[in-house]
């Protein structure tokens, strides 16, 4: 049995002469939560659509649960739960009826799973309310309940926390963590809310213009995220001179608001603050900082772009 739930090999998709996905080699290990990061149009949804069988690759291949033939892949998809580009709901049905339609589709015996799923996502009190009258957050929860029906081994979630209120975000995050830890459900989560993804993912894949730029673990990301000292003083120009002359470093950056990012001496903040105050500078702000996932992502794709 492969240690990977999903492994792609040069997976490519071309639309109207343009590569939407270009030779993507991705591997998602069993038990991991894989954060899939990319701008709008980067290729995330195309990738998910290929894996879930909604579209066919132009070139390349992939293995799902170690299976790669057409018939085997169809069977393997019985073991996954999905939310693809938003929750797929029947608007004129209640939450329980929506779950019933999917229970029948998945061939799950007994109706107990419906109440259990509704309780799991906090929708047990929705009664006869139709899905069309749900808030976006409630729809997301129902979409998640549907994805979780039948105890899938692999969850593919496209923007699962979109539209949730702050409490809802925390609840869903905790639920996903719990499912991952207790039931070892592997997850592929694409999200624009990178700070939230940072709290959840064990691995990351960064996709840009159809190319998978990088795959790394959360540990590797933390190591790569550059640490620095955030310094705000009354005289930034003088502070820059002091850093060069007294501390002998040019590893700093004066930001537009006058604050300084010092990438050296991150292990010796006391020495830096003493040197600056000894030179008569007034420290307005002084704190150690680290580059966040968002900054790392922006840096990795080559600066701020508009997707």
């Amino acid at each position, binding site marked *: 049995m492969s240690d990977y739930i999903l492994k792609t090999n040069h997976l490519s998709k071309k639309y109207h002469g343009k590569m939407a996905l270009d030779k993507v080699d991705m591997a998602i290990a069993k038990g991991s939560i894989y954060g899939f990061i990319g701008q709008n149009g980067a290729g995330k949804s195309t990738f998910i659509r290929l894996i879930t069988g909604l579209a066919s690759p132009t070139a390349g291949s992939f293995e799902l649960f170690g299976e790669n033939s057409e018939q085997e892949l169809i*069977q393997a998809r019985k073991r996954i739960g999905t939310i693809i580009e938003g929750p797929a709901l029947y608007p004129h*049905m209640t939450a329980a009826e929506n779950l*019933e*339609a999917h229970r029948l589709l998945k061939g799950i015996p007994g109706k107990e799973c419906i109440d259990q799923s509704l309780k799991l996502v906090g929708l047990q009190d929705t009664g006869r309310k139709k899905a069309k009258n749900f808030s976006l957050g409630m729809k997301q929860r129902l979409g998640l309940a549907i994805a979780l029906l039948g105890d899938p081994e692999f969850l593919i979630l496209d923007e699962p926390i979109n539209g949730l209120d702050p409490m809802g975000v925390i609840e869903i995050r905790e639920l996903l963590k719990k499912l991952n830890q207790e039931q070892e459900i592997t997850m592929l989560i694409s999200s624009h809310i990178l700070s939230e993804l940072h709290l959840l993912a064990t691995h990351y894949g960064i996709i840009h213009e159809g190319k998978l730029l990088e795959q790394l673990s959360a540990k590797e990301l933390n190591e790569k995220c550059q640490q620095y000292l955030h310094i705000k003083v009354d005289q930034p120009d003088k502070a820059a001179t002091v850093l060069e002359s007294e501390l002998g470093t040019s590893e700093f950056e004066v930001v537009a608001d006058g604050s300084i990012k010092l990438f050296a001496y991150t292990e010796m903040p006391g020495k830096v603050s003493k040197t600056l105050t000894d030179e008569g500078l007034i420290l307005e702000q002084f704190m150690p900082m680290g580059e966040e996932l968002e900054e790392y992502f922006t840096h990795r794709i080559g600066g701020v772009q508009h997707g």
Partner: protein
Amino acid sequence: MDNLMKTEWFKLRNDRSLWVLTGIIFAYAVLQTMMDRLDGGELTPLNDYYQYYALSFNEQIVSYIPCILAGFFITSEYSRGTMKSLASSGNNRIRIYFAKLVMFAAGAIIISLTMPVFMTVISAIVGFPGSLDWPYYLQTIGLTILYAAAFASIMALFSIMFTDSGKTVGFLLLFFMLADTMLGMISSKLTFLKPVHDNSVFQLSKKIIEINQVGGTEMIKMIVIPIGTFLVFGIVGSLIFKHKEIK
């Protein structure tokens, strides 16, 4: 019944458009029959009333009204995103299509039988004279079921190609209004197409009403052609769906 059929049956039972359409036809059947009963003139014999009122009007219902159901029951799966969960559910696309087609045909049959069944029942209850010619009645009901399924198969093929319910309904209504006339015009110029037109479900469905005057060979044709149409359009539709990219 397998999982897909159960799912589609559950969705059909919960499809509001099916029950609204059926309800409207039912209401029309009741009102029309009552008005005909109460208009004071000489009452038409029960069997003639069935043949010349219920059945002749039903010809339009069989070929037009299910177009609306097709838009809501099939195409709207795309706009709701539920087609994605169906297609990624680990089921073969051909089986998905046929489950959908069979249940849509069931919906089309319910719509198509509402008028002949209820007009007959109500006209019998309110005292239209005479008795029903049961062999004729059962033959026409059977053929109505076959032709409703054949038309449903044609509708399903186009419904799976569009992703917008409105476009599907509009296109199908136009198609069913013009298909027979267009095929007739083309076959008058290209004579080799004449047998296709003459033996199409569009032409043959008009003969349901006079099935009591149809001979043995013609009767077999009346039965075989809608079944063949259902299968051919079903197979073509399933192959289109198999290769369709779902967005």
